[in-house]
């Protein structure tokens, strides 16, 4: 049993999906989703602590076929760190989903909603675990296809979800197809798809133009999937018009998985010494990352809808992860992993709290939350803490992210970039202040709908808030794990 854990955490939600669709009953489907995401979370915690204790890489051969013939699932320091983030958020989002889905989605569709929900989670967990490059594509499409359907389910409340889902589908498919083109070139060069094997055999042909073209296609495809500026236009409408539960799950996990896959492919397969990698990918990612940080933050300041505001801020935060990757150093990668982890917590808290408001009154605009600070203090405080963490205020997880990001940049003497990172983070204060001012300093307008909060509304968000603060104060286990993850790809001291 224990040795099958790497496959079980993917298999449980994957097999649960058709079962949820067959159950037809919404509470049973929800219960099943809760049970399976809970089990996946438990398994990923076990795998993480096992990996931490032994420090070894756990390789699971599917069907008993060892690599490179068979497909393997690999639990190393990097995947062990990312798995609990995804399954943990999925678990908490599932707890919240019951109330949110009841409020926003037609009762007939609930069982199907949870089927797609479980599929997208299985797809994300699979992408992180698998050690086979083509298998990554398959899981990528499993999670994306069900995500398109989930976003489109927002149409019952907001019909703009439909064009948003369509654009997401077009760009998501283009991104995934670019990835497959790059993979095809790699397969032509090496004759293998196993990530470890690929990286070994690529060393002989690394100065060919085909290898560089493959890198370009794969990187570009994943930039699209991770919504790196300027390829981010699908993200904001998709997150803003999706059902609230879906916004929370996707904002916290979907793009992070693509960031992880990018790191795994670029550093794990091509490697830091690949000719042209540091110039082409490194410089490009740094430039786009810092540009995205500014564009996303400025766009967030101008938004009046809370979901859109924080979706724009996701563009900025993905920019910071890109900067960590672009630093091309162990500290940079560690910073990217730390921010990947922390940002998932913050955005989970924010979107769950916003969802609790949007599910009551249809949408969470600035008008909706005006003076709401006294009416729903716990929900608004969750949004406040999430916002402060986005800026990078000390005692929140966001501070640790920014600390290591700036440290990675200073290590390489990128003074200007470090300053720009600092400035763009400070700019985030503008949109957080806008929320504070609207929610606490203004009076609630007369005739505004009464917002309520009961434990079902705020507990899921607060679980994330507590984690955000917890990892802000007791950051050292996370930092250690992130460095271990970074050292999978780039050697070197701390």
């Amino acid at each position: 049993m224990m040795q099958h854990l790497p496959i079980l955490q993917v298999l449980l939600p994957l097999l649960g999906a058709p079962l949820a669709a067959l159950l037809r009953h919404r509470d049973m489907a929800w219960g099943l989703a809760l049970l399976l995401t809970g089990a996946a979370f438990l398994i990923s915690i076990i795998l993480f602590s096992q990996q931490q204790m032994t420090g070894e890489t756990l390789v699971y051969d599917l069907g008993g076929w060892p690599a490179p013939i068979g497909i393997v699932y690999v639990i190393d320091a990097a995947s062990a760190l990312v798995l609990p983030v995804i399954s943990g958020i999925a678990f908490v989002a599932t707890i919240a989903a019951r109330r949110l889905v009841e409020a926003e989605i037609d009762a007939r569709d609930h069982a199907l909603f949870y089927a797609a929900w479980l599929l997208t989670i299985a797809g994300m967990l699979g992408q992180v675990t698998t050690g086979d490059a083509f298998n990554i594509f398959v899981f990528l499409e499993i999670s994306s296809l069900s995500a398109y359907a989930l976003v489109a389910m927002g149409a019952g409340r907001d019909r703009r979800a439909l064009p948003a889902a369509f654009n997401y589908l077009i760009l998501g498919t283009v991104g995934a197809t670019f990835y497959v083109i790059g993979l095809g070139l790699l397969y032509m060069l090496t004759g293998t798809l196993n990530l470890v094997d690929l990286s070994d055999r690529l060393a002989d042909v690394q100065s060919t133009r085909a290898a560089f073209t493959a890198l370009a296609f794969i990187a570009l495809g994943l930039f699209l999937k991770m919504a790196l500026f300027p390829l981010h236009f699908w993200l904001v409408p998709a997150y803003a018009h999706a059902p609230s539960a879906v916004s929370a799950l996707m904002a916290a996990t979907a793009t992070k998985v693509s960031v992880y896959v990018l790191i795994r492919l670029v550093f794990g397969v091509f490697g830091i010494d690949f000719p042209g990698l540091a110039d082409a990918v490194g410089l490009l990612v740094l430039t786009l990352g810092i540009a995205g940080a500014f564009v996303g933050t400025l766009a967030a300041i101008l938004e009046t809808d809370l979901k859109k505001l924080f979706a724009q801020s996701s563009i900025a935060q993905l920019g910071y992860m890109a900067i960590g990757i672009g630093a091309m150093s162990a500290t940079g990668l560690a910073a990217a992993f730390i921010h990947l982890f922390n940002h998932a917590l913050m955005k989970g808290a924010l979107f769950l709290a916003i969802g609790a408001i949007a599910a009551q009154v249809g949408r969470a605009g600035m008008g909706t939350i005006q003076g709401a600070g006294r009416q729903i203090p716990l929900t608004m405080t969750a949004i406040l803490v999430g916002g402060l963490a986005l800026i990078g205020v000390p005692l929140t997880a966001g501070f640790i992210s920014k600390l290591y990001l700036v440290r990675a940049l200073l290590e390489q003497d990128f003074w200007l970039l470090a300053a720009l990172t600092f400035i763009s983070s400070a700019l985030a204060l503008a949109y957080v202040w806008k929320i504070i001012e609207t929610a606490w300093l203004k009076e609630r307008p007369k005739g505004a709908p009464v917002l309520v909060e009961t434990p079902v509304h705020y507990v899921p968000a607060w679980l994330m808030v507590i984690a955000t603060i917890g990892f802000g104060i007791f950051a050292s286990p996370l930092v250690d794990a992130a460095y271990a993850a970074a050292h999978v790809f780039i050697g070197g001291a701390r």
Partner: protein
Amino acid sequence: MSNLIAHWNYFLVIALMMIGFYAVIARGNMVKKMVGLSIFQTSVFMLYISMGKVANGTAPILTGDTTTLYANPLPHVLILTAIVVGVATTAVGYALIIRVYESYGTIEDDELIKIIETEENAEAGDA
């Protein structure tokens, strides 16, 4: 020159790829976008399938004769999976187009953008 002719299949693939990609980007009609996307994906199928060809190789069926030269079956198997994914994407895409048409009465990008902008302005008005 001989190099060009020897790799004619890849030129065909790239031509198809660009035709499809152009349609995805340049067309405002959702159905045309989907058609472009399908052409784009098909070009990738052809890229994979043609790379599995081994000169003078036959179909990869085990006969017990060890001297037979086979085509590489692995890319074909991979593309079987990718075709399934492509069909699923196409199905979801067209299903969305039907829903968009039912809801908005149009599937032209520019008209949709106008409708959505009006809705957003109305929303910003009461925010």
